[in-house]
Each structure stands twice: as C-alpha cells, then as structure tokens.
C-alpha cells in the first residue's frame, strides 16, 4: 500500500484523509491547486513515533517541492457535513524545508490526538482512534487570501459570501482581522463590497513560521479584491459546486496574479 502519493493521486479518504482526497479531486478536475503530496495516516503515525525509514520516505517525496512548505492535517473522518472540526486540526505554514518536516508531522499527529481534539471527536460521536494524514504543498506568498462560502451561512441566501484580507488566509480563517466582506450573486453581480479593518497581514518569514505584520495605514480599509478577482472567485465557486456539490466552504489565495484553491469542503449544518 502506497504511503505517499502526489496530491492528484489521492483517492482513498480512509488512508489519506478527506482534505487530501478533496484536493486530489480538484486537481483531477483541472482546478488551480498548488502542487503537493499526500501522506497517509500510517506514515504520519510512523514519523511521529520516530521510525527512521518513514522519515526518510516522507523526505524523499517532499524534497522535490522545495521549501518553504505548507503542511496541513488531513484527517480520515473530518469534514463530514455534521461537524466542521473547524480549528481542531493543525495547519503549519512555512515549514522552511524538508529537514523540519518530521517535527511538523509530529506536531500534527499530536494535534489530532490532543485532549481537545479527542474530546471533540467524542462529542460528535466518534470513539475510534483518529487517523490523520497530511497534505504538504509548496507555500504560496499571496497578495490576498481568504474564505468563500457558496451559500450565505447566516441568512441561507443563494449567493457567494467572500471574506478577504492581505497576505496569508490565516488572517481571515483565524479571525485576526476584520476582513473585507463581499457578496456576489450567481450571475456574478456584486451585491456588496464592505471594506474591513485589516491592520495585520500574516506573512511567512525567512527562517520558518509566520509573523503578523502591521500593515501601512492606507491598506487597512482599502478593498483587497477588485471586480475582476471577484469574477474569478465566482467562477471558481461554480466549478466547485459542479465537482463537489452545493454549499461549499472554499479557502483560496491570489498569488502572482493567479487564483488558487487551497481547500474546499462542505459547509456544516449551521456553520
């Protein structure tokens, strides 16, 4: 059984986790996903346990991606429609190179087996040992990034809701800033553009990890997306719905003028 595959070949959720398989599906359908590999739950566990052969194998696959890396957990039974597990699992941004990979994988394994993660699993009715795979991709240096829901999560309206900020999407996902807030209808017509209050951007730092950078005053309330970009996001929303179904939670980033898909999963009930 293959323990590591290129992301586009991740097919089995039980082995590679739902994030990897979701991204693999996106790649197979021609969506713009940053290149990467999927590590199985078993190799992540083996690396966390300190098995040398596993560490070597993981390094061999990840090496060609270069550095820096985005290392994200991909759990086997996460992302179901009943519970978002939002924030339960770990994303390690800017792991500078493959040398730091094994400690990153160990951290991810432990975050999936942490007190809070296990308690959360039990609360949502999962009593088995978690299996956590990992997705490793080349890290982007985005100009702007954020989240898009293909349905309004508060009103339920059939429209795209986009929240965006400067730099890495962490700022939006983790709620570090008040992001710009946009709404677009299916046809692409922009219904609302509300500038946020974006004092901080999350950026990757040369030696690994990220930092919260204070932004210069004129960027704080400047809209970070123009109408062309909103149009592209609307088209991406349509493609995601075609491939995965309705009510999608999409993480995206715009780097070097290109819109990338970072994650696409179901909007959870009530989420």
């Amino acid at each position, binding site marked *: 059984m293959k323990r590591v595959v290129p992301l586009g070949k991740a097919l089995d959720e039980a082995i590679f986790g739902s994030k990897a398989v979701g991204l693999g599906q996106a790649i197979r359908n021609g969506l713009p996903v940053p290149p990467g590999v999927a590590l199985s739950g078993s190799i992540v566990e083996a690396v966390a*346990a*300190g098995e*040398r052969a596993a560490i070597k194998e993981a390094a061999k696959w990840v090496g060609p991606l270069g550095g820096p890396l985005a290392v994200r957990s991909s759990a086997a039974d996460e992302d179901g429609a009943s519970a978002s597990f939002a924030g339960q699992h770990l994303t390690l941004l800017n792991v500078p190179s493959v040398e730091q990979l094994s*400690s990153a994988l160990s951290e991810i394994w432990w975050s999936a087996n942490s*007190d*809070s993660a296990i308690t959360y699993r039990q609360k949502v009715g999962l009593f088995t*040992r978690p299996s956590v795979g990992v997705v490793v991709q080349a890290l982007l240096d985005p100009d702007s990034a954020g989240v898009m829901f293909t349905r309004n999560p508060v009103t339920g309206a059939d429209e795209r809701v986009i929240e965006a900020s400067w730099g890495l999407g962490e700022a939006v996902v983790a709620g570090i800033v008040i992001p710009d807030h946009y709404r677009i209808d299916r046809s692409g017509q922009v219904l609302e553009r509300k500038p946020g209050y974006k004092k901080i951007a999350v950026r990757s730092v040369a030696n690994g990890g990220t930092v919260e950078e204070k932004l210069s005053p004129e960027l704080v309330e400047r809209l970070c997306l123009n109408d062309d970009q909103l149009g592209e996001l609307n088209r991406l929303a349509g493609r995601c719905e075609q491939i995965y179904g309705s009510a999608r939670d999409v993480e995206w980033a715009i780097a070097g003028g290109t819109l990338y898909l970072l994650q696409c999963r179901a909007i959870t009930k009530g989420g």
Partner: protein
Amino acid sequence: MRGAPIKLLQRVPLFTDLNKRELQQIARLFKARRFAEGQTVVQEGSGGAAFFVIESGEATVVIGGKKRTILKPGDYFGEIALIDEGKRMATITASSELVCYGLTYWDFRPVVQANGVVGWKLLQRMAKMLRESRED
C-alpha cells in the same frame, strides 16, 4: 528507532518490574512530544486523551489555582483521565523546555490490561492519592 528510549522507561517506577522484552513492546508505542516553556500540557477540566512520561525538563502541577507540585524527568502523569474517561484533574504547565513521551488511550489501555504488574502499580498510586485527599 521507534518509540521511547528504554532507558527512560526503566527509570519510571510504573514500569520497573517489567522485563526487557515487555519494556521494548511498550516503548514502541510511545511518541515524543515537545512543549515550550510556559505552554500548557494538560488543562484542568478538559477531557483527557494521553498519558505522559517526562524525559527532560520540568512541569508545574496546579489544582484549583493552587500550585501543588513539580514534575521532573522520570515522573509520569495523565493516567487518571484515561482510566475513568473523566476530566483532567489538574493543569500541568511546562516550566522549562519539556520533552515527554506520550501514549494515547488506545495504546495505554491495552498496555495496562496486558501487564498486570503495571496495573498493580497504578492501583497503588491511586490508593495513595485517595488517602492523601481524605487527609486534606
């Protein structure tokens, strides 16, 4: 080499009566985990998922806001929540760079069930704790 160093487990009173082969079996199941100084290892009141042995560094134990004790290399903690599936009884914080080896519930329980001597030692410690809490 996979798991915790045998030398570490040999120092832990819980495992001293096991023979080398038993120790090796158990050691393989452990995984290293590092905590930075000041990081919370275990939070009082939360659900519990893992049992830890300290390899290096120190940690403080606080119950109900009062500092109770300091844990050092060779000490272990976290087993009670795994045994009764209840909440963590104390908050344990790394007071220096802390390196632990941990077992989650799914590995801990079989170890205890398969090794009566380990179970006996756990019972001894819990009896001691029970007496001490009655004296408080």
